[in-house]
C-alpha cells in the first residue's frame, strides 16, 4: 500500500488528524528518492561496464602479456594504497571498499597469472594461495560485514574444495577432510577473537553458523540412505577433527560471551551432535531410521528455537521454526504413495504445520524485547 493510502486510512480511522496527515505527507515527500530514475541510471551503468568488459575481452589476446600484468599490478597496488590511506584518515567504509577490491584483484591476479603462464592446478590450490596471501589483510584490517563475509566465504569455499580433492583412502586424507569440516566452527572461534571489531566479528559468526546449520540440515538427508559401518568409521575420523574445531569454538565463544550462553550451547553443540548421529553411526534406510532422523532434526532445531526464545533472538527463533516447517512439509513427500496415503500425508503435514504456526504466534507474542 502506498504511503498516501496509508495516511488516508489512518486519518479515516481517527488515529491522526488532518494537520498530522499533511505533515507526514510533506515529510515523506521530502524523503522520497527518484527510485525509477536511479534504476534506469543503474541499468545504463551496468550496460556501460559490460560493454567495456566486452571490448577488452574481444581484444584480450592482442594485448601484450606484460601490459596485462603491469596494469593489473598497478591496480592492486592502488587498492592497497587506498586502503592504507583510508585507514589513516579513519574513513572506514572507503578502507573496507578498497580492501574488498584488493582481495578481488588478487584473486583475479592469480587467474591472470594462470592464463598468461598457462599454469594448471586444482581450485583449492588457488583458494589456499588467496587465503595465505590476502587472508591476513582481511583478518587484521576488516571492520565490517563486507570483508567478514568475503573472508568467510573464501575460507568455506577453500575448505570445501580441499575436502573434495583429498584422498579418502588415506588417514591424511580423512584428517584433511576433517579439518575442512571444522572450517565453519573455526569461523565462530575467530569471531570470538575479533570482538573488538563488532560488525566484522558478527559477520564471521553469522557466516560460520549459517554454514554449520545449512550443512547439518542437508546432512540430515543421510538418514534416508544406508550408512555401512566402514563409511561410518571413516566419518568418525573426520568428525573427531571437526569436533576439536567445534570444542575450540565453543570454549572461545563461551569465554568471550559471543552469544548468550544457552543460545551458544544450542547453536554449536546441537548441530554437531545431529551430524554425528546422522553420519557417524551405522544405520539402514528403512522407515524407523528415517523417523529417528526426523526426530533428531526436530530436536536440533527445536533446541535452537527454545534457546533463541529464551535469549530473545527473534530472527534465530524465526529461522528455526521455518526449518522445522520445511521438515514437516517434507513428511508429505515421504508418505506420498496411493491416493489414501497421499491424503493422510497431507492431513498429517498440514495439521503439524498449523500447530507449529499457532505455537510460533504464541511464543512470539511472549517476547518482551526484540533481539537481533
Amino acid at each position: 500500500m502506498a504511503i498516501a493510502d496509508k495516511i488516508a486510512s489512518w486519518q479515516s480511522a481517527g488515529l491522526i488528524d488532518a494537520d498530522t496527515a499533511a505533515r507526514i505527507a510533506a515529510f515523506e515527500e521530502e524523503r522520497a528518492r527518484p527510485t525509477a530514475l536511479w534504476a534506469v541510471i543503474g541499468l545504463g551503468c551496468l550496460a556501460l561496464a559490460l560493454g567495456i568488459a566486452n571490448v577488452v575481452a574481444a581484444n584480450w589476446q592482442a594485448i601484450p602479456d606484460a601490459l596485462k600484468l603491469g596494469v593489473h599490478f598497478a591496480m592492486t597496488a592502488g587498492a592497497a594504497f587506498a586502503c592504507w590511506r583510508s585507514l589513516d584518515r579513519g574513513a572506514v567504509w572507503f578502507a573496507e571498499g578498497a580492501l574488498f577490491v584488493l582481495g578481488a584483484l588478487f584473486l583475479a591476479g592469480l587467474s591472470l597469472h594462470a592464463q598468461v603462464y598457462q599454469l594448471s592446478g586444482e581450485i583449492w590450490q588457488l583458494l589456499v594461495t588467496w587465503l595465505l596471501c590476502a587472508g591476513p589483510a582481511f583478518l587484521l584490517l576488516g571492520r565490517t560485514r563486507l570483508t567478514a563475509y568475503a573472508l568467510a566465504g573464501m575460507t568455506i569455499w577453500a575448505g570445501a574444495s580441499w575436502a573434495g580433492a583429498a584422498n579418502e583412502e588415506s588417514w591424511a586424507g580423512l584428517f584433511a577432510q576433517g579439518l575442512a569440516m571444522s572450517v565453519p566452527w573455526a569461523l565462530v572461534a575467530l569471531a570470538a577473537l575479533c570482538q573488538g571489531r563488532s560488525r566484522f566479528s558478527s559477520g564471521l559468526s553469522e557466516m560460520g553458523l549459517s554454514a554449520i546449520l545449512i550443512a547439518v540440515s542437508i546432512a540430515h538427508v543421510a538418514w534416508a540412505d544406508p550408512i555401512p559401518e566402514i563409511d561410518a568409521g571413516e566419518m568418525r575420523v573426520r568428525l573427531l577433527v571437526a569436533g576439536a574445531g567445534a570444542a575450540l569454538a565453543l570454549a572461545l565463544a563461551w569465554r568471550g560471551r559471543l552469544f548468550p550462553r544457552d543460545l551458544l550451547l544450542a547453536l554449536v553443540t546441537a548441530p554437531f551432535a545431529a551430524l554425528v548421529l546422522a553420519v557417524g553411526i551405522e544405520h539402514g534406510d528403512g522407515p524407523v531410521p528415517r523417523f529417528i532422523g526426523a526426530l533428531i532434526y526436530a530436536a536440533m532445531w527445536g533446541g535452537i528455537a527454545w534457546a533463541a526464545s529464551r535469549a530473545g533472538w527473534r530472527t534465530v527463533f524465526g529461522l528455526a521454526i521455518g526449518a522445522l516447517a520445511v521438515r514437516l512439509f517434507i513428511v508429505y513427500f515421504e508418505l506420498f504413495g496411493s491416493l489414501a496415503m497421499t491424503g493422510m500425508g497431507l492431513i498429517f503435514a498440514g495439521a503439524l504445520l498449523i500447530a507449529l504456526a499457532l505455537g510460533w504466534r504464541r511464543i512470539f507474542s511472549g517476547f518482551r524485547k526484540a533481539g537481533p
Partner: protein
Amino acid sequence: MTRILLFAVLVLPLLALAGSIGLREAELASAEEWVIPVTGFDPRDMLRGRYILYRYDQEIAGNVDMCRDGKCRLCLTGPAPDGTRLEIRDLPSAPCQTGIDWAASDLNMTALPPFAVSRDRDVRLPPRFSLSGRFFVPDADAAALETAVLDDQIAMSVRITPDGRVLNRRLVPRIAAPREETEK
C-alpha cells in the same frame, strides 16, 4: 609494531604477485623454443572469447598402449625447433632430450585402444593418440586463423621448460618438412 604488521599484511599480496611473475619469467628464460604442427576445429565464439580447439599433428613413434594409464614418457625428438616428431617411451623416468609433461601443461591426452580405430579408410576417426588443448585468439584474427587451421597450415610456437611444462606462445606457419622435400 602494530602499524608495521598492518602495513606488512597489506603489502603481502603485492609481494606474492611480484614473486610469481619473477619465478615464471625465470622459468621461461630457461625454456626451449619448439614449433609443433597443430590441426583442429574452427574458432568457437564462446562467452570467454574466440578460441581454437587444437590437436598436435605429429608423427608418433613408440607404443601408444603405454599411455593408456597415463604413465608413459613423451619426448620430442627434434632437433629443436622442429616439433613434428614425438616418441612415446615406456617409463616415466626414461631419458629424454626434451620431455613433455602433458598434465602440468593443461593439455589433454587421448590414447585409444586399438579396436577404437576403424579399418574403413573412408571413415575419418580420431587418431589413436593425441595431445590437445585450447588456445584463445584475438577477435580480428579469428576468421583468417579458421581457414589456416582447416587447411592444416598452422603450427604452435611453444616454450618448453626444463621440467616439461609446455607454454603456448603464438600460432605460426608450419615448418616445411624436410622428408616431404626429399620425396619430391
